[in-house]
């Protein structure tokens, strides 16, 4: 039945949405593609975060710790050590993976707000490190990265789209698989889950590793799209906030929801651009109203009510 679900999901969502998205470059301007490209990367951050937060129940305030490690790992490899693009992406991803395992350590000991605090600290420390080693990292203005995936708008759009689709399939598969079930159980009641014979530590490490893998890789790829990496684009709390809003607004524990949330967030930001600095506030206000009146997000709006307590 799980497998059926998966095929079913592929056949409807992927076929319909994907076809339109694939055809999009035919009709849309480079600007629209550019906006969606960024939205796709944000969607991967949010999906990866959803795996940890929604399924494994980890209050992770530091998704950008992982994103930042991936981005800077890749960026530094390329700009300082002149390593080509794809090996650099691999290095960044690996660095994020290590970071994910480091973050999993406290997660196994601490719960709730305490763990959240540690992740917050991790982000702040990473930011400080970038500042301290500014001769390599460029400090607050960041790195300029010469290599690119491609300079074509369409090409970048397809890279991001393809990567997002792969990430979505992988994360959704895991989330809907046995592992997802066990993760969700250990998020809800770790003791009872252990008593069922599951090594909760193992699953948490796996969840952190997977989340780190995708968010790190997304960070690395985005760096080669943007042509630069700076704390403001991949590390600061503001990026974390975007990730959290995208997930909550889209609908937690759906993996698909965060995609909708991320697209909403970026697109709404662009549509509201004429409002200038108030645009962020308005987006946040919409999100807040959603939270108050439709707590399950976009995905929840379309799920039939009932069936849930």
């Amino acid at each position, binding site marked *: *039945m*799980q*497998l059926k679900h998966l095929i079913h999901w592929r056949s409807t969502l992927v076929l319909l949405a994907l076809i339109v998205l694939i055809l999009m470059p035919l009709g849309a301007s480079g600007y629209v593609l550019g906006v969606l490209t960024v939205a796709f990367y944000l969607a991967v951050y949010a999906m990866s975060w959803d795996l940890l937060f929604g399924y494994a129940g980890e209050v992770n305030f530091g998704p950008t710790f992982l994103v930042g490690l991936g981005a800077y790992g890749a960026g530094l490899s390329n700009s300082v050590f002149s390593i080509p693009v794809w090996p650099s992406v691999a290095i960044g991803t690996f660095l994020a993976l290590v970071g994910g395992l480091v973050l999993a350590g406290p997660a196994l000991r601490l719960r709730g707000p305490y763990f959240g605090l540690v992740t917050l600290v991790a982000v702040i420390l990473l930011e400080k490190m970038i500042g301290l080693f500014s001769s390599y990292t460029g400090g607050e203005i960041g790195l300029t990265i010469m290599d690119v995936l491609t300079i074509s708008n369409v090409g970048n759009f397809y890279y991001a789209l393809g990567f997002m689709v792969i990430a979505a399939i992988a994360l959704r*598969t*895991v989330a809907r*698989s*046995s*592992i997802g*079930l*066990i993760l*969700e*159980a250990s998020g*809800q*009641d770790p*003791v*009872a889950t*252990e*008593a*069922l*014979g*599951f*090594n*909760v530590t*193992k*699953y948490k490490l*796996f969840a952190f590793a997977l989340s780190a893998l995708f968010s790190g890789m997304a960070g690395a790829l985005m760096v080669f799209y943007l042509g630069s990496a700076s704390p403001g684009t991949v590390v600061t709390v503001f990026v974390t906030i975007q990730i959290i809003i995208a997930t909550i607004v889209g609908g937690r*524990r759906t993996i698909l929801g965060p995609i909708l949330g991320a697209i909403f967030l970026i697109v709404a930001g662009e549509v509201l651009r004429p409002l200038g600095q108030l645009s962020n506030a308005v987006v946040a206000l919409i999100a807040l109203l959603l939270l108050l009146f439709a707590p399950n997000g976009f995905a929840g709006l379309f799920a039939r009510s009932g*069936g*849930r*307590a």
Partner: protein
Amino acid sequence: MSILEVSGLSKRFGGLQAVNDVSFSVDRGQVLGLIGPNGSGKSTTLSLLMGVVRPDRGKIQMEGVDIAGWRTHRIAKQGMAMVFQHSRPLARQTVLENIKLALLPDTLFQLFPPHTLDRRAHEIAERVGLAKVVNEHPGELPFADLRRLEIAKALAQDPAVLLLDEPFAGLAPSETREFAELVRLFREEDRAVILVDHNVKEVAGLVDNIVAMHAGKRIAMGSPEEVTRDPHVREVYFGSSLESASGVHAAGDRRAQSGSDRPLLEVELRSVRYGLAEALRNVRLQVNDGECVSVVGINGAGKSTLFKSILDFLPYEGVVRWQGQAVTGNGPGAVASSGIALCPETRELFRYMSVRENLELGGHRLDNQEREAQLERVFDLFPVLRQRQAQAADTLSGGEQQQLTIGRALMQKPRLLILDEPTLGLAPLIIENISEALERLQRETGLAILLGEQNLTFALRHSERVYLLETGNLRWQGKAENFVAEVGEDVL
């Protein structure tokens, strides 16, 4: 050789020796009852067996392997399973998926389970009586089905040793019988079962052996008959003995003195719900001026729910009248101000504040002089509070905290004092203190008392009338002296 042999098991939490040198063993096809009053250490013992808590000392040998200190999931794989008293099933998954969870292998390398799992899950659901609701979500299930689900999950692991933590708590009699049938089935399947419960009576017909615990120690072991007869056990449960307890009828005399039949509190609850579960139905209860009434019943019978409803902490269908006036919907603050003081089971002290500050807050509506006078009375009643008056509440021992809770309630100068499980987990000496204090209060002030207790000795000793609550229903009411004759040891 026994499948499980426990020897010298000990665990200390801070200043509390929760489990003290406990030994027992259980064979395949045997049911062992672990009984004792609340706080006696039986749940901790189960946690130690399952590896949820690491033992300080002692051996837990399972088929010859010492598993003491192992991590829970390894113990589970060794063949032990546990049904937790409070556990949270996956709310967004169906009952079937919840059962399938328990059937999954502990591996990262199998994303989707084989189809045989589905059949297994259906079989297990069938066996525990969940066949009709396999596609429902846990949130929609009645309480008994949730317990069934927990048992199903444990069963799914095909355990050699099954630990059941109070499996009958909160169940209706017919459901209790069904569950007992399930336990018998486990025995027939050659599993060893360890079952924790409060009283002997409920499990007597089910278990082969009983280990009775008190204050972390094993106080008796043997067949149900042996343990029931054991004087030590009887004393723990009944104080001296039931007969003598209900014989102490100073209470009746007292009421004669105050001579009042005026109803102070009248409760008519049609229904109280927590979400979908109905916790109380059709409970009518009355407390007269100066009278002491107790509501007895085991854990989960609905005593706390009743008291919370009276104080308007919970929404309910029905009406509560105080001195003839309906107070329903007034809010807890207003109800409390009208002269009802509740000492909740959770105590709800202001933990970082001093004893004196806690008491003063209780008497915040009194003027200074009156408050000082009342403070003196409370200190008289509980001298230890006078000594400890500058200490923060959460540095007190359990008994002192209980006295403080009562003291704070008394500072309100209530006309009715409601005590929810005032003796829970307390040493006999402290219980005696509290007992004396209550007697004094009644004698000197004519305070009406509504007592919620599972400690029958204590309840019968103080009350004139008794209500027996069972799974949310009022099962019996009457004079305390008739309790033993009419209900007797049935409830124990």
